[in-house]
């Protein structure tokens, strides 16, 4: 179990290292505009093949690259209904504060739980290695956070139920 996680994260790290080759590219259609090409997909020559890395049926990661931007979409493991709700709420909390993260996308791509958008400007200001470390660390921490949240919810539920039933 742990070894597939390690292999999955190594694979994503290697793919990101190779795919994060971004440069400034002004918009071809409109003067003086500079748009992330991976979001608009106007010209096919500016896009690379999107790559889907699945760990199993539930977890996957879609990496789409273009000349000036890179989009990473993650689907997090959700074993049961409770984890489903917790993951949705937690990731929505993060997405709404996307300004603070800089590289986070406000809405996840259709079919995924959370998305990152990295542009050439991010690569100029921030270090590429650290960006990749951040994303891989994020993926590791998400799983831990959600299991912690689940445990705290069940503990609280148990405490509340014991207290409530004491009166009977």
């Amino acid at each position: 179990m742990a070894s597939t996680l390690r292999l999955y994260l190594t694979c994503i790290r290697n793919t990101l290292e190779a795919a994060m080759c971004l440069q400034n590219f002004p918009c071809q259609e409109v003067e003086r505009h500079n748009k992330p090409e991976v979001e608009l997909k106007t010209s096919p020559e500016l896009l690379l093949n999107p790559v889907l890395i699945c760990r199993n049926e539930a977890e996957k990661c879609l990496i789409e690259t273009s000349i000036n931007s890179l989009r990473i979409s993650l689907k997090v493991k959700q074993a049961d209904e409770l984890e489903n709700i917790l993951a949705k709420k937690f990731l929505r909390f993060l997405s709404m504060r996307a300004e603070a993260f800089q590289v986070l996308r406000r809405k996840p791509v259709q079919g995924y739980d959370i998305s990152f958008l990295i542009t050439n400007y991010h690569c100029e200001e921030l270090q590429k290695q650290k960006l990749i470390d951040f994303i891989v660390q994020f993926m590791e921490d998400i799983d831990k956070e959600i299991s912690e949240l689940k445990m705290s919810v069940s503990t609280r539920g148990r405490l509340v139920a014991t207290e409530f039933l004491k009166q009977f």
Partner: protein
Amino acid sequence: MAEAEKSMGSDNVEDILTKIENKSLKIESLIKQYKPIEAIKTALEGYPPQDERCKFANWIVVRKALMAIKDVEGILRSLNPQYYDILMKYVYRGLSTGDRTTCDQCLKIHEKLTEKAGFGCILRSLADTVNTV
């Protein structure tokens, strides 16, 4: 003229499908004889086809050969470097399927192949939009 070309096109597809079937039989026999290296070499040979059905048929064949690999390091050592790029493309195709066993195997192969072939191999498989697999 267009009709003649179309019939030529479909002939080619049938030809390619029969070639892929022959390849599949050869690979199955090689796997039974415990020769996974030859199986992989036969599977990766040949220009990747353009037609969707042929690509799918070819992928099934390559998947059989990939799943039979037990010793990844050994295979990569003995494989000709010219096959690294096409192997990487097939590994990514395997990773996109989502099937647990295929993904496990492909993740193992991806790690070792990246160590051997480097990031250039990954980038070539990303950048090649013409010869997709």
